[in-house]
C-alpha cells in the first residue's frame, strides 16, 4: 500500500510545522483527500495511526474530509466531475498512484481535448494543524 508513504508525509509535515510554530503539542490535523487520487480512507487512517504510534505521538485528532474532483477544459471551458466507472481498472489504478495520469487516461467529455485543469480534488493535503502553544 502506497498510502503509507502519503500518511508518513502528513505526519512528518505536521511535526515540522509544529516545531516551526513552536507548538508544545499537536492536537489536531485536518486532512483533505482529493477524490481523484482514490485513497482508501480506512487504509489511510490505519497507516496514520500506525505511524503516530511508532513515533510515540498520542491523542492527536485526525479529521479527514474528501474533496470532489472537478476538471475544467482549457479549450472549451466545460467543467465536469470525476467519473471512475468510465475508466478501466488499470487506468483508475494508475491515477491512484499518480493523479496526473488523468491527463493520459481522460479527455474532456464535451470536446475531446486532452488539455484540461484539475480545479479541485487532486490529492492529499493538510488543511490545518492545531495545537497548544
Amino acid at each position: 500500500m502506497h498510502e503509507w508513504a502519503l500518511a508518513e508525509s502528513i505526519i512528518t509535515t505536521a511535526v515540522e510545522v509544529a516545531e516551526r510554530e513552536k507548538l508544545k503539542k499537536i492536537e489536531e490535523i485536518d486532512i483533505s483527500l482529493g477524490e481523484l487520487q482514490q485513497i482508501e480512507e480506512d487504509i489511510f487512517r490505519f497507516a496514520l495511526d500506525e505511524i503516530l504510534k511508532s513515533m510515540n505521538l498520542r491523542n492527536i485528532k485526525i479529521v479527514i474530509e474528501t474533496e470532489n474532483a472537478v476538471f475544467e477544459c482549457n479549450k472549451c471551458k466545460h467543467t465536469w466531475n470525476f467519473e471512475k466507472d468510465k475508466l478501466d481498472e488499470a487506468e483508475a489504478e494508475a491515477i491512484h498512484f499518480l493523479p496526473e495520469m488523468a491527463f493520459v487516461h481522460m479527455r474532456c467529455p464535451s470536446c475531446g481535448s486532452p488539455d484540461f485543469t484539475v480545479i479541485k480534488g487532486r490529492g492529499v493535503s493538510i488543511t490545518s494543524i492545531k495545537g497548544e502553544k
Partner: protein
Amino acid sequence: MVDPRLSVIKKRLKDINNIIAVASGKGGVGKSMVSSLLALHLASQDKKVGLLDLDVYGPSTHIILGIPFQKFPEEDRGIIPPVFHGIKFMSIVFYSEDKPGAFRGIDVSNIIRELLAITQWGSLDYLIIDLPPGIGDETLDVINLIQPTEFLIVSTPSKVAMGAVEKLIDLLLELHLPIIGVVENMKIGDSNYVKQIVTSKDVRYLGSIQFVPALEEAIGDSSKLLKTPFIKDLERIIKKSL
C-alpha cells in the same frame, strides 16, 4: 494548505550517497543515452544504482535499456522501484502505458513531487536522474527539492547546442550548484570549441564520446550496449570524474 510531500522527499533520498542529474540546455544531445549507460556501467561494477527518468513528455531510458513497463511496481510503504539489469528503475511510463499526456507546468511539478515522495529507493551508491532539455520545471524542481544534486552536463560539438548549454551552465554557476563537468557527445571532427568555452567558465571538460553509427542497433539490448564504443568513452570519463 500545506503540501505534505515536500517534507518526506528528503527522507526518501537520505540513504543515497551520490545524486547525479544528467542535464543539458539542448535537446537530442544524448542525455538519456548517457544516463542509461552510466547507470548500466555502474551496476555492472557492482554499485547500487537507481535510475529516475524525469522526462515526463518523452521518457526514453526504458527504451534504451529495454525495460518492460506493463506491470505496476510493487507497493510496500510506498512504491518499490523494480530492478532491471541491476538498476532500480523508476519512470512515469509504468503508469502512463507509454501514452502521451498533456501536462501543464504545475502537473509536471506534481508528478515529480509525487514520484519523489512515494518511491522507496533504499540505500544506493548512485541515483542517476535523466532530465529533459532546458531549464524548465523538471530542472528547477530537481534544483529545489533534491539537495545536493551534482550536474553532469551533456553537449554536442555544435555551436548551436553550446548556445543553449552555456545558459544552463551559467545558471548553475550563479546558484553555486555543483557541476561534475561537461561531456561532449557525438564527437566528430577535432574542434576545440566546446572544451574552450567550458574551461573558460572554470568548469571541467570531461572528454568526448565518439559518434557511434551502429549505436541504434544496440538500443533495447543491455549486453550489446555494454560492448559499444560509447561505453568505452564513457568509462574513461567516469574514471576521472566520479
